[in-house]
């Protein structure tokens, strides 16, 4: 840290331009510190690595996948690994590896959308509940409690059936469950931040209520939200995978990992490859997100606590 400038004894005409030039050179970044801390956590790096691999795979799927994932070949059903099909084939003779690769697109799409929707709803409601307090808070929290009381899968299954088959009903169904986590965490943070003097200080300088929420509450709640998001992603994936396994959600022939597990389970004793690799894909993705989320949380916390 710097020495205090004891220049209160006659500051006069300090060369402001020079001071500003020095200023530009000394940019320090909060992000840098967070990154340094994050880097030290090996598991978190692994998790981030997994995520990066997934994203790249998803983007470049057409270039990476050896076959067309929808290509049915009844001559080569339920095969184990071979040169042509490194991870074997499924019950319709489609290449497992290619389906896994294309599956990342769906997985990421689902994960991101779900988290975006539920995050949006949850954070907004959490902010309102926390800042408003009183009966507004009570009402919102009771709504949260109600949603949390539902057995997730039953609710999601029910919703999916009601809304019809396809990807979107699953997304909406799971999103409607997960938003409660965001709401709770956000509200909790808001209540803690409310005690801080800088909120009152903001009021004292004349900030409007909306301004206080967006400029003072929200940026300080953001780290928690990011962590919840990275942890909810795998949850979302698991939920949708389970629903897909049950036959809901994306319909054939779209490659979806959950469904692949379902299909593979049918002939598991004959050839365990499909069920294993698609299951592993889910597990690795989930673990990766979890580790990254933990790492993010640890990296962000000490920084917020002070230097």
């Amino acid at each position, binding site marked *: 840290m710097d020495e205090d400038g004891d220049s*209160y004894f006659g500051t006069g005409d300090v060369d402001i331009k020079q001071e500003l030039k020095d200023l530009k050179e000394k940019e320090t970044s909060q992000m840098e510190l967070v990154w340094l801390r994050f880097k030290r956590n090996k598991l978190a790096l692994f998790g981030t690595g997994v995520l990066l691999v997934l994203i790249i795979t998803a983007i470049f799927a057409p270039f990476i996948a050896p076959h067309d994932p929808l290509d049915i070949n009844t001559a080569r059903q339920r095969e184990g690994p071979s040169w042509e099909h490194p991870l074997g084939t499924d019950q319709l003779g489609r290449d497992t590896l290619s389906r896994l690769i294309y599956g990342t697109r769906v997985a990421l799409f689902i994960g991101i959308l779900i988290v975006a929707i539920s995050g949006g709803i949850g954070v907004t409601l959490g902010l309102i509940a926390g800042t408003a307090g009183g009966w507004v808070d009570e009402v919102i929290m009771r709504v949260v409690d109600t949603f949390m009381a539902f057995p997730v899968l039953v609710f999601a299954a029910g919703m999916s059936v009601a809304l019809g088959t396809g990807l979107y009903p699953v997304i909406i169904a799971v999103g409607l469950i997960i938003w409660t986590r965001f709401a709770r965490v956000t509200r909790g943070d808001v209540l803690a931040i409310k005690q801080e*003097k800088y909120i009152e200080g903001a009021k004292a300088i004349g900030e409007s209520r909306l301004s206080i929420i967006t400029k003072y509450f929200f940026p300080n709640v953001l780290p928690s939200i990011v962590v919840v998001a990275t942890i909810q992603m795998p949850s979302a994936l698991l939920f949708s995978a389970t629903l897909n396994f049950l036959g809901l959600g994306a319909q054939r022939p779209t490659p979806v990992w959950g469904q692949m597990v379902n299909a593979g389970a049918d002939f598991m004793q004959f050839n365990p490859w499909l069920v294993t690799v698609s299951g592993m894909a889910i597990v690795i993705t989930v673990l990766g997100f979890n580790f990254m989320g933990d790492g993010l949380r640890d990296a962000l916390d000490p920084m917020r606590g002070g230097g």
Partner: protein
Amino acid sequence: MNIVETKNLKKFFESKKGTVKAVNGVSLNVIKGEVLGIVGESGCGKTTLGRTILKLIHPTSGKIFFDGTDITDLDGKNMRKLRKKMNVVFQDPVSSLNPQMTVYDHLNRPLEIHNMVDSEDEKIRRMVDILNTMGLKAEHLIRYPHELSGGQKQRVCIARALCLEPDFLVLDEPTSALDVSVQSKILKLLDRAKEKFDVSYMFISHNINLVRAISDRLGVMYLGKLVEVGKTGDIFENPKHPYTKALFKSVPQPDPDKKVEAPLTGQVPSPVNPPEGCAFEPRCPYKETICERESPDLIGSYGRKIACHVFGKRES
């Protein structure tokens, strides 16, 4: 001329144990250009008083005047405009700064909200000027709070409060969390800033020697009420209220030849459901029968007022 005046100001909180009468009928005034010190022990309500005067919390009853205008019931929009003229510095510098905002952001907000500058250049110039007044440099603009020391954080808080060029500033224990040597620097800065920006201060503290050094006039609070008000020098030379007398005797002096007395036994009662009569009566060695029944008014003359049935008579 008074920059701030309150009439029978009250602020009550409802709690499970009952009504907390934090501020229980305070009438005071802050003269333009002066430093009014407010001292008292825990539960006396001094912090709540400061926040209520600034309308950071809404008064339960009574009136608040700012520069002659009644602001007690002023609505949100007009109150926000007034925020340019009155501000606050809190005790805890760590909690007072938004960890996600740089020093620049902190100084920028008040300037933006109140449209105080026309160009970015002028804004930066102004910020740097204020920082320099506080003994900080331009480079501190890009720092986040966690990169600053306690003393530096507090200076930023004061700089932010001053960059609006307010007429009135409430300082609530601004140096209590700091080392003694840092404290003396900040106090000198505050003193200088007062001259430069022509601000009036309400300086709230539990450190009696400190308040003595910095205040022109002094108010002593006990359980939500002012018990004595007057010129600082007068009060220290000749404290009149029994509580003030006892309190001053309890303050240790940095002089090995002077020893404290402990004339006050027991502790300050809780501000929940305070007694009907004089709040100090249970511990007062001079009490008379009227003291239990009736709460004394703050009366006096020539700027010196006390709230005491026994000693107050001699004032007016």
